[in-house]
């Protein structure tokens, strides 16, 4: 344990919630993580991790392979149990939450897993209807209408609704999984590598879809991603996992941030290309 007691990042460097520059400004904090420590056996993944996500923003979560991005996401949604620290989502502390309260919370968020994690024995429409039927208790006709609406909103063709996940392409599976995540109209959306495995055009479309849905549905989005194009084009703020902790900032702040990994990531050829493209798009 001893080795990890020392602070790898000087605490004075960061503002509350791991921010480089304080953006709180009276904003509603939807996810508040304080002093988080996750550990598997002897391997410490996160230590003294503070992290805030504000209402109505798209926050990207990046980090090198094995830095614990997915672990952080899984910990926030309650699939991993932290060793120490508190996680507060929508004002509720998730630690030791009893099942009813947890269920109430779970109905207010949607999760998109990396490969979709659609139920393989059900069709897309049935996948969307599972949470609706279980939690909202709607009648069959309304279930179908709502499912059809979600299918349309996520840009799937109507005939895709009656297909099973194995009959869909990778991009369509992601859209179907997004439709299922949106089934209960959550306030909070967790995305685990939403554009991984998609071609750049589909990835771009998917990013735009997430952005437009986020705006019209008023969602708060936390997305784990490797895709620097997504970060540049749709994320309001970016959280970087460094030395077991999170550093949050806007793209401009991170560009100025002095850390070898951050420099290599954002100033590398891919980072530069993505920013140039975005600037050109903004200029139009």
């Amino acid at each position, binding site marked *: 344990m001893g080795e990890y007691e020392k602070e790898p990042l000087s605490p004075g460097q960061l503002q509350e919630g791991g921010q480089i520059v304080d953006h709180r400004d009276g904003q509603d904090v939807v996810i508040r993580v304080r002093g988080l420590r996750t550990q598997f056996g002897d391997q410490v993944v996160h230590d003294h991790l503070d992290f805030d996500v504000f209402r109505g923003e798209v926050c990207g979560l990046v980090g090198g392979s094995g830095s614990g991005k997915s672990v952080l996401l899984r910990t926030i949604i309650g699939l991993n149990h932290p060793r120490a620290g508190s996680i507060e989502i929508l004002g509720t502390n998730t630690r030791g939450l009893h099942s009813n309260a947890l269920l109430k919370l779970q109905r207010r968020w949607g999760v998109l897993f990396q490969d979709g994690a659609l139920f393989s024995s059900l069709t897309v429409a049935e996948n969307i209807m599972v949470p609706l039927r279980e939690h909202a208790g709607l009648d069959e006709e309304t279930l179908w*209408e709502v499912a059809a609406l979600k299918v349309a909103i996520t840009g799937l063709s109507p005939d895709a609704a009656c297909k*099973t996940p194995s009959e869909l392409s990778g991009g369509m599976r992601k859209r179907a999984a997004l439709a299922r995540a949106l089934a209960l*109209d959550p306030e909070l959306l967790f995305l685990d590598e939403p554009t991984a495995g998609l071609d750049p055009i589909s990835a771009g479309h998917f990013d735009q879809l997430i952005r437009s849905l986020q705006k019209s*549905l008023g969602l708060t989005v936390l997305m784990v991603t490797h895709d620097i194009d997504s970060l540049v084009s749709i994320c309001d703020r970016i959280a970087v996992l460094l030395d077991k902790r999170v550093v949050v900032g806007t793209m401009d702040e991170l560009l100025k941030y002095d850390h070898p990994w951050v420099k290599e990531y954002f100033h590398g050829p891919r980072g530069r290309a993505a920013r140039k493209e975005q600037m050109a798009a903004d200029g139009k």
Partner: protein
Amino acid sequence: MADAEPTLREAERAGQPVLEASGVWTVFSIRHVQRLAIRGERTGGIRRAGGVSEIDASKVGRLDTAGALEILTLAGAGPDTKVTAQEGAHADLFKLVQANMRTPEPDRPVSWLADALERIGYSWADAALHAVNLCEFFGEVVVTLVRAIFQPRRFRINAIVRQMFEVWLRALTIVGILCFLIGVVLAYQSVQQLRAFGAETFSVEAVAIAIGRELGVLLTAIIVAGRSGSAFTAQIGTMQVNLEVDAMRTMGLNPIEWLVLPRIMALTLSMPLLAFWGVIAGLLGGAFACSIYLDFTVAQFFERLRDTVGIWNFYTGMIKAPVFGFIIAAIGCYEGLQVTGSAESVGRLTTKSVVESIFFVIVIDAIFSIIFLFADV
């Protein structure tokens, strides 16, 4: 207004029917409105009536897509209906839902005759395709086997040994116990029935012939089909789902040679060994039961066995064993390779593989009976 019930009221403005929505319209609250709507209360019985030119949703509290959709559907409104809503989030939501809502098409009724014919047609086509595929698979196995005989290093001895450990050594306990119990039951029943004729000593023959000719090997085959045939299908099927089999093909590794042949070899070799073990356990069970019900010692049982029961009763069973092993392994592997895409398909084909291999084992057992009848053994 925070938790007000969702309501829909008909009003008139400037001679035009206008619907006023108020309250909370979310996916969790709309089931209340449905009950009201079905009873025709408060909504004025206008469920899915159509013909409303304007909806006033400015008094709605919380709103989500399902709620917006419900308001529009209850009003019978379409994408073009004018909706007045609070500026910002609500207006955006209505726009999004109106752009994406579609009128569900009713299913076209299909006559039962056409339906039945379609189903029969499909099942015959499936069966034909299945038969062709099975022949193709057996052909491939035989070709690979012949090639392996000329190039013995293709036999993958390591894989065969590992499979034999699984399907032979690990099955010994269960096969032994079940056959022993069947031997006991068989001997007990024989003694009971034959005692009526004073011929209870013939129980030894009854047990020995039944176990040696049929039950020992058949019971073993059924256990092996349930435990190893299903395992083969599940293993290969999971590899198929993970695209491991495709990966093998692209690396120039023949899945028949790497996955199927070792399993078939292992089970073809293991089945006679297991069946022998089963027969011995069955006979011991018979001897045990006879020593209890018949005042026979175990030694007397085996003496009578040696004197009166022909050795061919044992050979006939043993001849069948490798054939059963081959059939079970081949069907298990074949069904595993038929898996496509999903986890559900693994489960379905595993069931199918067990049912099919037990079916074929019994069919082939019947064929053997006829052959042995003509061969007079």
